[in-house]
C-alpha cells in the first residue's frame, strides 16, 4: 500500500501527463481540506472541553487518571503489537493469529495461577509464583508461535502473499476453537496476588499508580529496549535484520533463514506471553475470545506506529491506549455529546485512517529498507 501511494504521488509532479496533473491537485486539495476540517474539529472540541465550568468539566486529577489508564492499556497493546511488527518486518506478512498466541499464553498460565491461588502459594510467595506463571505463559506463547510458523506458514513461504494471510486467519480460528474445546466457553477469574491487587499503589515521580499498571508500563519499556538491543547487537539480531532486508541474499551469505524466522516468531511469542499474564492480572478475567479484540487493537497499534518498526509498535500501542482513554472525553464532552466512550472506536479508527492518508508508512515507518 505504501509503495503504491508513493509511486503515484512523486512521479506525477515531475513526469506530467494531462490526466495526472488534473488528478493530483484535487487529491491534495481533499487531503488538505480534510486536515483542516479535522484539526478545527479537534481544536474546537478540546477547547470547549477544557474551558467548561468547573462543575461540568474534568479536574486535573481526572485527566491524570485518564492518561494513566491509557498508558497502562497501551503497554499491553505495545507488547502484542511488537509481535505483529517483527513478523511483518521479516516476512512482509500479517500474522493474524498473533492475538490467539497471546490468548493461549494467558489461558494456560491461568491454570497454574489458579492452582497456586487455591493452594495459597500465590499470596504467601507472590514473586516466585508470579515468576513461574510468567515463564509458563511465555513458553506457551513461544511454543505456539513457533508451531504456527512451522505448520501454517513455512510450507507457504513462497506462495503468493494472500495465501499466508488466509492461513493466518484459519490458524486464528483454529486456536480459538481449540481453546474453546479444551477450556470451555466460560469466563474464568484470573487470580491476582494481594501484592498486585487493584487497591495497592506505588508512587513514582509524584504520580500514584496501581502496582499492576507500573508493572505493565515498565515491562513494555524494558521489552522495547531489550529487543532493540538484541536486534542491534547480537549475531541472531543481525541475521534477523539481514533476512528482513533480503531473504535470498541472506541465505547466500550463509544465514539459516528458517532458523532466523523461527527466532522472530519465538520473540513475538515471548512478548505475547508476558502481555497475556499482564492482561490477566489487570482485568482478572480470561476467556477463549479475548485474543480477537485485543489482537485487532494491537494490530491497529502496529500499523499506527509504522508496521515493521519496533519503536513504532511501542509508540503505536501507547498512542492507541491514550486515544481510547483521553480521546472521547477531550473531543466530545465539549460538544455535549452524551456517552462519549461509545465513540471510542470512531476516534481510534479515524486516527488510523488519517495516519495512513498522510503518512502511509505509519508514524515511525518512513524508511522502507531499514525496517525491523
Amino acid at each position, binding site marked *: 500500500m505504501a509503495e503504491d501511494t508513493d509511486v503515484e504521488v512523486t512521479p506525477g509532479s515531475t513526469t506530467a501527463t494531462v490526466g495526472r496533473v488534473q488528478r493530483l491537485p484535487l487529491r491534495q486539495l481533499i487531503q488538505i481540506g480534510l486536515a483542516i476540517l479535522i484539526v478545527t474539529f479537534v481544536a474546537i472540541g478540546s477547547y470547549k472541553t477544557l474551558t467548561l465550568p468547573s462543575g461540568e468539566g474534568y479536574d486535573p486529577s481526572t485527566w491524570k487518571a485518564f492518561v494513566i489508564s491509557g498508558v497502562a492499556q497501551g503497554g499491553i497493546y505495545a507488547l502484542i503489537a511488537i509481535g505483529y511488527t517483527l513478523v511483518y518486518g521479516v516476512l512482509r506478512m500479517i500474522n493474524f493469529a498473533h492475538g490467539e498466541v497471546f490468548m493461549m499464553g494467558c489461558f494456560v498460565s491461568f491454570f497454574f495461577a489458579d492452582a497456586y491461588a487455591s493452594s495459597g502459594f500465590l499470596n504467601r510467595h507472590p514473586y516466585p509464583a508470579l515468576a513461574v506463571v510468567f515463564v509458563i505463559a511465555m513458553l506457551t506463547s513461544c511454543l505456539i508461535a513457533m508451531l504456527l510458523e512451522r505448520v501454517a506458514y513455512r510450507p507457504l513461504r513462497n506462495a503468493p502473499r494472500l495465501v499466508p494471510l488466509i492461513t493466518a486467519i484459519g490458524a486464528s480460528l483454529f486456536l480459538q476453537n481449540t481453546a474453546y474445546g479444551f477450556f470451555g466457553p466460560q*469466563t474464568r477469574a484470573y487470580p491476582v496476588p494481594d501484592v498486585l491487587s487493584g487497591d495497592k499503589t506505588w508512587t513514582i515521580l509524584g504520580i500514584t499508580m496501581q502496582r499492576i499498571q507500573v508493572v505493565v508500563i515498565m515491562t513494555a519499556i524494558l521489552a522495547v529496549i531489550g529487543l532493540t538491543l538484541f536486534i542491534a547487537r547480537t549475531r541472531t539480531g543481525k541475521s534477523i535484520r539481514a533476512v528482513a532486508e533480503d531473504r535470498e541474499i541472506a541465505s547466500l551469505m550463509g544465514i539459516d533463514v528458517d532458523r532466523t524466522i523461527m527466532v522472530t516468531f519465538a520473540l513475538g511469542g515471548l512478548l505475547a506471553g508476558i502481555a497475556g499474564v499482564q492482561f490477566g492480572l489487570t482485568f482478572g478475567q480470561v476467556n477463549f475470545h479475548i485474543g480477537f479484540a485485543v489482537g485487532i487493537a494491537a494490530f491497529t497499534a502496529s500499523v499506527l506506529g509504522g508496521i515493521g518498526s519496533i519503536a513504532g509498535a511501542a509508540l503505536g500501542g501507547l498512542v492507541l491506549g491514550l486515544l481510547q482513554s483521553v480521546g472521547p472525553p477531550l473531543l466530545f464532552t465539549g460538544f455535549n455529546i452524551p456517552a462519549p*466512550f461509545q465513540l471510542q472506536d470512531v476516534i481510534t479508527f479515524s486516527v488510523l485512517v488519517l495516519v495512513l492518508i498522510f503518512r502511509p508508512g505509519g508514524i515511525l515507518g518512513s524508511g522502507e529498507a531499514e525496517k525491523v
Partner: protein
Amino acid sequence: MRHRRWLTPLVLLGAFAMIAAACSNSSSAAGGSTSGGAAVDCNAAPGCVTIAAGAPIQIGTLLSVSGDNADLGTDSLYGVELAIDHLDGTFDGTPGQIDGHAVQLQQEDDTCSAEGGQAGATKLAANPDIVAVIGTSCSGAALGVADKILGDKGIVLLSPSNTNPALTAQGTHNPYYFRTAHNDLIQGAVVSDFAIKHLHAKTAATIHDESPYTEGLTTAFANAFQQAGGQVVDAEVIDSSQQSYTPVLTKIGQKSPDLLYGPDYTAECALILKQGHQVAGLANTTFMGSDGCFASNFIKLAGSAINGAYYSAPNLSAFQQKDFYNNEFIPAYKQQFGTAPISAFHAHAYDALNLLAAAIDKAAVKNADGSLTIARNALRDAVQGTTDLQGIVTTYTCTSLGDCATAVTIGVYAAPNLAIEGSTGNGQPIFSETKTLAQATGSG
C-alpha cells in the same frame, strides 16, 4: 476446518432430511385438511401444524447455551426439561406428554446476540413441524430479529428471560411474541424505589453496553428515578468487546453519584465492579447491577469488589408456589443436573413450557386417527388468552402486547448474599416489592 471429514456425509444427510421433511409435511398437511377440516381452517395464513399419531410435538428452544452467557440459557433449558418431565405430574425422569403426544425439543443457540438470534430463528422457522419456540435468553436476540423471523411464519415465541420493554411495547411488539419474564419497566421502578427509600440516593449514574437488555433496564430505571425526584447525573455507554472501563468509570467518578446502576452480563458486571472500586471519585458510590450478572462464576470473577454491591432480580422467595419450588423443583433440578440453579430464570422457563402446554391443549384439534391439528393462529390466540394460570413464579395473565407476568415481585440482594450458587448467606433479598405492569407503565 476440523470438521472437513464430516462435511460430505453431513451435507448428504441434511439434503436427505430436507427431502424427507418436505415429503412428510405435504402428506400430513393433506391428511389434516380432510379429517379435521370442519373445525380448523388451515388455508388461512399462517396455516397449521399437523402431528401424526404417535409423532412428537416439536418445540424449539432458542437459548444462550454457549459462550459467556451459557449459564443463563442452560439454566432456562434445564427449566424447560424439568417442565417436560413434570407434564405427567412427577419429576421421575420420564418425560410427560401433551394431548397424548411426547414433546421433542429442537435446541438452537441464540449466542446472546442478534446474529445468533437470526441464525437460530431461521433454522427453527425452516422446520415446518415446529409448534412454538421457547426463547430467547437475551433481549438482543429477540428484538426485531427472532420475534420477526418466527412471527412471520406464525410461530409463537415465548421467552423466559427477555426483559427489554420494547419487546412488548406498542409499535415494536410482534403479535406472536410473549414472555413469562418480567418487563424491565417493573424492575427499573423497583430499583428506583430501592435507591430512594433504602439507600436515600439523590443522584445516580447509569452504564449500559448498547445491548437491548442493558439499555432497556437502565432507561427504565433512569425514568423512574427522575420521576421520583432523583437526578441522573451521567448516563454512559461501554463497548462490551473491550475490557478497560476505567476511563468511563473515571468520567462518572467526576460526578461522584450516590448510586451507579450498571446492569449487564456477568463478565462486564465483574469488570465494572473491580475497576470501579479503584476510581477515586466512586469511593462513596453504591454499585448496583441486575439479574443479568448472575451466573455461577460471578462471585469468583468479581472477587472482594462484590462486597457492598446490590443486585436486583426476581425474588425467588416470593414465588407463588414456593413450597413446590423448594421441595420438589429444586431437588429435581439438583438431582438431574448435578448442581444448584446456575442462573435466575429456570422457574420462568418451567412456567413458560407449562403455559405453552396449556395453550396447545386448548388450541389443538384431535383428529379421529389420533393425529393432532394445531392452527398457528389459534395457538397464538390461546397463549394470549391465558388467564390466571398458576405458575411457580406468579399467576400469569397474558396481555395483548405479550407480557404474561403482569404482577411481579422483584427483590434486591445485598452481595455476596445472592440467590445463586457460590453465594454466602441465606439467599434472601433485603428489599422486595411487588408491582403490576400497570403501575410500572403508569409511573414510567
